[in-house]
């Protein structure tokens, strides 16, 4: 165990001890359990309200509650959506109480939602929230809590593409601004690595989707908010221990899926090119030639016999590098996850302590380990005062693994040739051609150089790259009840995350040897050799520190009489997040004796490779970023007659990122909402739909770009012409009007519950309008900014969407069957974007966003395809409406934007999940099927320029047009030498390669077996759950006929994984 780890560990233990001794027997507290009348299972989230008072408590996940009450109290009211509300008389001797609740037909799901500023009961909700409870979160394994939202929350879309945001809620709402939702952990925005959060400590996640839900978060809520609530200590609960242990086995990825060109075809192309004199054997940088080309050169030069050369080449034709990757590089991944927590509480203090350990080894042998400990304490030293304190510590370590397929490239970016051999027949590592020609590597420097070969199977063992993260997250919240109904609270959160990177290229590593060799200076006259980069290891260290401080002061006021209920909160908060970093490099480092060598970074040395003077890379850098926010906010809800609800929220942010005008004059972001519980009206008497609520909300939230600064900045340049003075240029132009992007959302929803709770759920329809979005705005040259455009808040977009979250219980007897259906529709279109250019070629590639007015933000645009020509197999497009092979014209202005095919959106507008849960006796089976419809993707294919120059081949080369008539059954253009870059790129970006991406996927299957003390008296523990999960199980149906996974059209698909584990509660 790390020493670093022990210290905070002790701190937590001491704190807990200190907290426990604070417990004193004061106050009148009643405790109890709220259980289901049907099966005695605990009911978490029920509210307990003392008669005639506003204060209320909520039961924890074990159905427990504790309530401090005055002696005069005679009764309490217990409420939970889905159960009949009860009011019971109590006397103080009854504690602990066991209260059974009858199920209600009015089922609406979870009863409270947390916005990070308050917890509100669902009756008061007018906005759009999605609550993901503990059970749903635990249906998937893994160290990252956010990934567990996959397939369990409507409107959440995960995307693998590198050019698009990886996670969106209700679609994208920005072009150039940040697109990630705001993540809130225990009431404060979380700046650290999300992997610092142990999923086992997470109680629930709430997604804030519309303005009424999110606008309380102001300028950072435009992309939605993910509120993570961790498990808390609570008062008056018995001592309990919970253990969780699970192991996950991850299948090796199937390399045969990769569309790699066959070695035989590849070699045939190389031989052809060689005969055409394509290869430059004398480049200034000795650029690598492939082994086959080297053999052909030797054959030509008579260095080996033609028979030998042909025999060797023919042997290489049989080699497939994927086999070596499969055999020597990839392995099954193995993850372990262990967690334990202890909780309990008395009258004045409660605690929750947890520890977790994760150890993951992925399919490339990269390691990840994490230790997490967490302490949550609640104190109630006085009747009116409550203190919640939490302290979490995470220490994790990432260790780099082996190079995966596609990660080995030459210095010029060429791919690995398909007939590469990583090991010989006996498994001994073989060198690969990497950066320089074999003949150069073998002979350079007359023996003065270090071995210049690259051995892929050995090299990773000589590069030790680790990233360690140590994170402390501390929270303290003090809540003081001033007078009846009025509570003041003060919260403080602190985070310190230190990320330490260390990469040690030892003396044997290719990186170190290559650098030493490049700089080696040989005086051939005297034979003197000098190594400016000393032989030995190279050590790169980096250190990044994040310090974040948050302070919040808030007043809550609640009032209730017979017909009216009012809740108001107002607060002020400030937050600062300060990131500093540095990195540096040491040469000639010896890890055993910690010695090193200083090198000359100042003078250029002639590179042995290029012959140019070059400087030894220093690797030194510093960074320092500071973000500050000051905000005021308010929120109110008024309920009349239990059925009419009006809500409002307002917030004003100022920040050192915004321009002064935005800070001074900017209007606050606000929202308003209304709710009407129709089913509570006296006139409403539907027995089929006994629960019906309508919601409407309207408002604004924002999106701030933390990388944009609102000040004018300079860069210094040395040695001005004529004067030799140091002078400055302006690199960034202060825009006093620079503000945040604004997202306006109109949301309307209905919540229904059918007879006997057989079905229910909610449907939301929303309109989301982004304005003030960052975009390039043309600039009047009179402003003198030396540029034609500048980023301003100028662009607009408009999205419509539907979220459906329904459940059905077809069977609810001994055998239970639950269906949970998620359906989301989201399509956002560009309504305004400056500088739209009309050249079609600028829209077809994968260059990020090139918005087209009236089309989705992420659209697939392609050249129109007219098939292959009958005579030559040339790909044909259109110029001026006529079939054409004038590729230069197609690229350079001959194709207008309006001449392109709009294939469709490249992210699914329709997506969701169908979750089936079955339970019988102690068994429970969950099957989650996800679906995505209505979108398109582009297949990879043969690109001759990429093949000739970059060694990137595609297996469909075998299907290329070879003779007239082939065009009837193939779209792959004929082989053409010399290559035509525009011809290739026309084909690659044409509609010929676009496929429907629709698919249905088996996301996961879970099997649980649970026994508890109630069913098995002799069980030595309260509850035991055994589980088995299968994740990433595979595609059930896809629209494309090529067997492609649209999420991974040309790269490796992750393998299925299997998890086995148990959870025990004592």
């Amino acid at each position, binding site marked *: 165990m790390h020493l670093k780890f022990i210290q905070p560990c002790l701190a937590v233990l001491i704190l807990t001890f200190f907290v426990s001794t604070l417990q004193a027997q004061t106050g009148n507290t009643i405790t109890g359990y709220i259980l289901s009348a049907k099966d005695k299972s605990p009911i978490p989230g029920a509210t307990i309200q003392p008669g005639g008072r506003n204060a209320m408590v909520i039961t924890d996940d074990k159905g427990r509650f504790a309530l401090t009450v005055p002696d005069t109290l005679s009764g309490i009211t217990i409420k939970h959506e889905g159960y009949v509300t009860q009011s019971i008389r109590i006397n103080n001797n009854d504690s602990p109480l066991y209260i059974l609740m009858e199920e209600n037909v009015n089922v609406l799901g979870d009863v409270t939602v947390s916005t990070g500023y308050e917890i509100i009961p669902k009756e008061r909700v007018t906005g759009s929230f999605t609550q993901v409870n503990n059970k749903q979160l635990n249906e998937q394994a893994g160290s990252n809590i956010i990934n567990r939202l996959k397939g369990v929350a409507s409107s959440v879309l995960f995307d693998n593409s590198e050019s698009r945001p990886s996670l969106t809620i209700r679609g994208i709402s920005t072009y150039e601004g940040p697109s990630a939702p705001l993540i809130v952990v225990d009431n404060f925005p979380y700046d650290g690595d999300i992997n610092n959060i142990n999923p086992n400590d997470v109680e629930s996640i709430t997604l804030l989707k519309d303005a009424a839900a999110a606008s309380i978060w102001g300028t950072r809520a435009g992309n939605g908010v993910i509120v993570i609530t961790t498990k808390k200590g609570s008062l008056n609960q018995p001592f309990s221990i919970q253990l969780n242990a699970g192991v996950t086995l991850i299948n090796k990825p199937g390399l045969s899926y990769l569309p790699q060109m066959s070695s035989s075809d590849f070699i045939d192309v190389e031989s052809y090119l060689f005969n055409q004199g394509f290869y430059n054997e004398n480049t200034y940088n000795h650029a690598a030639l492939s082994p086959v080309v080297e053999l052909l050169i030797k054959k030509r030069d008579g260095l080996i016999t033609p028979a030998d050369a042909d025999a060797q080449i023919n042997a290489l034709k049989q080699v497939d590098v994927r086999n070596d990757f499969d055999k020597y590089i990839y392995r099954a991944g193995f993850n372990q996850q262990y967690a334990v927590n202890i909780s309990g509480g008395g009258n004045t203090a409660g605690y929750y302590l947890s520890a977790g350990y994760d150890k993951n080894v992925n399919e490339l042998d990269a390691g990840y380990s994490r230790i997490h400990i967490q302490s949550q304490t609640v104190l109630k030293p006085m009747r009116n005062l409550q203190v919640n304190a939490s302290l979490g510590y995470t220490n994790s370590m990432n260790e780099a693994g082996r190079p995966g397929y596609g990660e080995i490239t030459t210095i010029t970016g060429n791919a690995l040739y398909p007939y590469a051999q990583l090991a010989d027949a006996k498994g001994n590592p073989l060198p690969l051609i990497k950066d320089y020609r074999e003949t150069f590597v073998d002979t350079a420097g007359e023996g003065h150089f270090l071995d210049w070969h690259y051995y892929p199977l050995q090299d990773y063992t000589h590069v030790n790259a680790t990233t360690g993260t140590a994170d402390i997250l501390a929270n303290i919240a003090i809540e003081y009840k*001033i007078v009846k109904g009025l509570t003041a609270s003060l919260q403080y959160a602190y985070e310190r995350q230190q990320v330490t990177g260390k990469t040690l290229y030892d003396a044997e590593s290719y990186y170190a040897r290559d650098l030493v060799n490049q700089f080696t200076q040989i005086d051939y006259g005297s034979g003197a050799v000098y190594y400016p980069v000393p032989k030995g290891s190279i050590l790169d260290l980096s250190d990044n520190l994040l310090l974040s401080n948050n302070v919040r002061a808030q007043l809550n006021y609640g009032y209730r009489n017979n017909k009216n209920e009012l809740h108001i909160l107002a607060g002020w908060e400030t937050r600062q997040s300060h990131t500093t970093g540095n990195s540096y490099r040491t040469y000639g480092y010896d890890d055993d004796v910690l010695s090193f060598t200083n090198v000359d970074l100042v003078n250029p040395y002639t590179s042995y490779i290029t012959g140019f003077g070059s400087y030894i890379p220093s690797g030194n850098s510093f960074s320092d970023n500071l973000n500050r926010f000051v905000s005021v906010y308010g929120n109110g809800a008024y309920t009349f007659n239990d059925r009419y609800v009006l809500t409002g929220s307002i917030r004003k942010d100022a920040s*050192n990122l915004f321009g002064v005008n935005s800070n001074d004059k900017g209007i606050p972001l606000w929202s308003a909402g209304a709710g009407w519980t129709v089913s509570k009206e006296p006139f409403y008497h539907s027995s089929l739909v006994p629960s019906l609520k309508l919601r409407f909300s309207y408002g604004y939230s924002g999106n701030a770009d933390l990388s944009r600064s609102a000040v*004018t900045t*300079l860069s210094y340049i040395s040695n001005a*012409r004529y*004067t030799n003075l140091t002078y400055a240029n302006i690199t960034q132009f202060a825009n006093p009007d620079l503000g945040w992007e604004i997202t306006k959302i109109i949301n309307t929803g209905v919540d229904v519950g059918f007879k006997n709770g057989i079905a229910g759920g909610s449907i939301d329809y929303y309109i989301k309008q982004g304005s003030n979005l960052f975009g390039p705005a043309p600039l*009047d*040259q009179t402003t003198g900014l030396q540029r034609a455009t500048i980023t301003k808040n100028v662009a607009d977009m408009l999205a419509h969407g539907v979220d459906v979250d329904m459940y059905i219980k077809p069977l609810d007897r001994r055998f239970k069957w639950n269906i949970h259906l998620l359906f989301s529709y989201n399509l956002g279109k560009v309504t305004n974007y400056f500088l739209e250019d009309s050249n079609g070629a600028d829209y077809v590639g994968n260059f990020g966003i090139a918005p087209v007015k009236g089309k989705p933000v992420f659209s697939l645009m392609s050249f129109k395809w007219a098939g292959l020509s009958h005579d030559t197999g040339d790909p044909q497009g259109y110029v001026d409406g006529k079939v054409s092979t004038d590729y230069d014209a197609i690229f350079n202005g001959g194709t207008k934007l309006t001449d392109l095919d709009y294939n469709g959106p490249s992210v699914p507008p329709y997506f969701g999940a169908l979750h089936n849960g079955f339970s019988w006796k102690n068994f429970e089976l969950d099957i989650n099927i996800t679906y995505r419809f209505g979108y398109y993707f582009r297949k990879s294919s043969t690109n001759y320029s990429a093949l000739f120059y970059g060694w990137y081949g595609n297996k469909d080369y075998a299907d290329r047009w070879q003779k007239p008539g082939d065009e009837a059954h193939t779209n792959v253009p004929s082989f053409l030498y010399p290559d035509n870059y525009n011809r290739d790129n026309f084909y690659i970006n044409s509609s010929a390669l676009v496929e429907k991406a629709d698919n249905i996927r088996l996301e996961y299957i879970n099997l649980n077996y649970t026994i508890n003390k109630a069913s098995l008296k002799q069980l030595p523990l309260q509850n035991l759950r055994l589980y088995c999960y299968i994740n990433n199980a595979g595609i059930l149906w896809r629209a494309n006929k090529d067997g492609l996974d649209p999420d991974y059209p040309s790269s490796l698909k992750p393998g299925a994984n299997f998890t086995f584990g148990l959870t025990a509660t004592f």
Partner: protein
Amino acid sequence: MKLKIILYGGILVIITCSACKKYLDAKSNKSLVIATKISDYQALLDNNTIMNRVSPSNGEGSADNYYLNYSDWDALYNDAYKNIYVWGDEITYDLFPNDWGQAYDQVYFCNNVLEGLDVIQKDSSNANEWDNAEGSAFFFRANAFLKLVLTWANAYDSATAGKEPGIPLRLNTDFNEVSVRATIQDCYNQVLNDAEQAVNLLPVNALFATRPSKAAAYGLIARTCLAMRNYTRAGLYADSCLQLNHTLIDYNTLNTAASYPIAIFNAEMIFYAGAFGAELSNSIANIDTVLLASYSDSDLRKTIFFKDRGNGTFGFKGSYNGNNSLFTGIAVDEMYLIRAECYARENNAASALNDLNTLLQNRWKKGTYIPYETNDAQQALNRVLEERRKELPFRDLRWMDLKRLNKEPGRQVTITRLLNGAVYTLPPNDPRYALPIPATVIELTGMQQNPR
């Protein structure tokens, strides 16, 4: 007790909020250098690529010191250059960067400096640096505004200057403000105002000619007043300038065979500025034949300024920058000529000719120059103006002279261009003397375009 808590809490919130502004002024990324010191602002002003080397040449391009062959004109790679030559009706002035924008780049730099120095306390320890930076910013801004108003507005006429549109006067760094054209009167007032501030702040001598000095500021005011035809004042300021620097180069010391005989930062140069123009490139711009013919063979300028291409055409090689860029800054010779002109206009022929003869003695071959003598101030003025034309070609001064002299009956000139049989003429006081403002600027701001 509870009341107290609320009270103290309230006070705390108020104190914190009032500290907010400073709190939020912190820079968000430290590697971004934010100008905070006088030296930062001086460094901006020392960026001579922006502040000196590129200044407008479009006026010179429109003027009559040169002509182009049709083939060279036709080969100009942008219609904007072609249109400058023929005072084009069609506005295709969409080049980026262009003269207009580059002059305003200087203005933006100056405004940054002026705004920045506003918040730096000036005291005895930094007064020199502070004054120099502030004065330089005022000078550079005045210089840029003058170039702009001379090129993109009508000639100054005190009768109409209060009504006619000048150029936008951008006086702060907020680029969100829409540019609006000020009146010509306001523009000249601003130039004079800025330049006078510069006079008060700048040191007598600058370390480099790239930096403004008191002499440069006097010279700038003299030039401005000349453009306004306020000859009394122009003469006074030219005199002030010459008090500080009146050294003339004896052209007999120059090597006429050199490709650029006059070296940069020579004794006459008071303030350095350069300009380029594709249509003015000395490989295609042919010296106007009338101008060329006006030089005596004993006049060294004929061989020092002009390169005989051997085919009957001549190119310009007399830039004070010692290279192919045009010198558009301020030099001693111009000051002599301003003072001489102003003397002549005040009927002081003797003083006028004294200045003129002093200048020309340094321009002619040793011993060949016979001082010009007359008592007729009008004749003296004619002679001064003639020599002004011959002394200052390709200094971006001819356009200004054409404009102001067109206001004087008897000195009006009609310029003609011949291209492939087509004849273009620019009569005196034609509206086209105000060049077209870049079309994108008109589009984005809605400001009034100059009529063609």
